[in-house]
């Protein structure tokens, strides 16, 4: 078993056992992220209300062709309950967005360093050759679709879909949001022209920023659905306290 040993001593943990599942660093990062990303999403939607059109390339304004028009120019795209603050204020939304950007970047960097140095990320998220095989991935998808989740000791390891989702957030979505966010800064573009070139222009960076944010929302929705299906009390407790009760097999006696 690749995990820290449970309270039950050296024997292989079985369904019903309470085991330590999440390290303190993971739990801290998880809840910091939950708040930070929600604040950044809601303030970001307010920012987008100021100009609810997205373009590709270096430039783009009312006179240019937009690939996505979320609202007419004198309308807002996102209602008050979705935004921070509730009432229209681009200036205040920017204050929130840019202050929490520091929290996001510092927490992300700290977690990444911790996870790589301690081998945690390699242990939990490394996808093996076998797991990469289409048959294996397909099998996991089918199991998920049937809402059949692993039980007993098998529930301790992330399955390949979880690894893909968490790895995607950690190594693709959050870095893409940070890089595209910084690429929208005219000051940093002067210092680091390669950054904005990575995206093919400032308006492309803005579009990528939005797409990555929406992908994160999609992750969040699926994440919530999975937590609800897998047993929300046990799951939330494990992310708060670290302790997780291994699910039993259907046939196992309680």
């Amino acid at each position: 078993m690749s995990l820290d040993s449970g309270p039950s001593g050296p024997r292989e943990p079985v369904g019903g056992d309470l085991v330590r599942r999440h390290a303190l660093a993971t739990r801290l990062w998880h809840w910091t992220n939950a708040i930070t990303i929600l604040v950044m999403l809601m303030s970001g939607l307010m920012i987008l209300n100021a100009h609810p059109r997205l373009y590709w390339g270096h430039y783009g304004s009312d006179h240019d062709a937009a690939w996505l028009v979320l609202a007419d120019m004198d309308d807002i795209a996102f209602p008050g309950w979705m935004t921070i603050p509730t009432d229209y204020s681009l200036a205040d939304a920017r204050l929130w967005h840019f202050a929490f950007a520091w929290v996001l970047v510092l927490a992300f960097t700290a977690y990444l360093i911790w996870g790589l140095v301690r081998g945690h990320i390699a242990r939990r998220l490394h996808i093996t050759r076998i797991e990469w095989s289409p048959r294996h991935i397909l099998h996991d998808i089918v199991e998920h679709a049937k809402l059949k989740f692993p039980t007993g000791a098998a529930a301790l390891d992330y399955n390949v879909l979880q690894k893909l989702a968490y790895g995607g957030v950690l190594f693709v979505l959050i870095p893409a949001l940070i890089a595209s966010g910084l690429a929208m800064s005219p000051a940093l573009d002067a210092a680091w022209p390669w950054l904005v070139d990575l995206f093919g222009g400032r308006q492309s960076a803005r579009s990528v920023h939005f797409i990555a944010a929406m992908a994160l929302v999609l992750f969040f929705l699926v994440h919530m659905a999975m937590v609800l299906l897998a047993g929300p009390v046990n799951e939330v407790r494990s992310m708060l306290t670290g302790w997780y009760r291994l699910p039993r097999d259907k046939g196992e006696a309680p």
Partner: protein
Amino acid sequence: MIVTRRHALRLGAAGAGGLLLSGCDALNDSATFKHGLAGVGRLHEVAQRAIIGDSLAREFTEADMSPVFKANGSLRVADPAYRALLEGGFAQWTLRVDGLVHRPLDLPLSALQAMPQRTQITRHDCVEGWSAIGKWQGPQLGAILAAAGLLPNARFVVFHCADKLEGKPFYESIDLIEAFHPQTILAWRMNDAPLTEPHGAPIRLRVERQLGYKQAKFIMRIELRESLAGLYGGQGGFWEDNRGYQWWAGI
């Protein structure tokens, strides 16, 4: 009523969402909290200043230019004195340079046009999110400041403009680092034609590493100051005073 676990969860989620929203609004209304946010936000200025050094904003080619350059902010100046100058092709207009300088100046448009010119095709980024690429020409601000000669305690360059918004005079300010940056010019030409009124005739500031709200239009007077305190709302510009935009407009 029996409260099922699902009910409780749903209620809990709605409650948490509501709390978060009203909580954020309450925080947003708290001057102390907003001060804190702005304080953390100021780290962007410190970090970006350290990173950008004297780097130049990218210059584009004519092929990259926006077909239509959006005009924003004040599009028309109501002041009768300004309208008279506009009618006269700004032949009677002069740019006043004063404050903490050795030699206050009154420069007619022809004097600005006779100085060494810089032409640059750059990207303009509005705080709202859109960008436009245009071509600008004019003398470097640094050369004008050098001609006036700065007093040792001069720290900020303030641009007093002819337009009013919400009944308040428009102004903006930058520090001396941006003021002496080689791409910082007083543009009187845009896209190979004299600046039009919606774009800030007779001259507008181009400070290329900053957002659009810094690019002051209809400039009448340049004032060198030691501090921004005591000037209008004290935050260094109309948008800073009246909307809470950050003085550092690098992001």
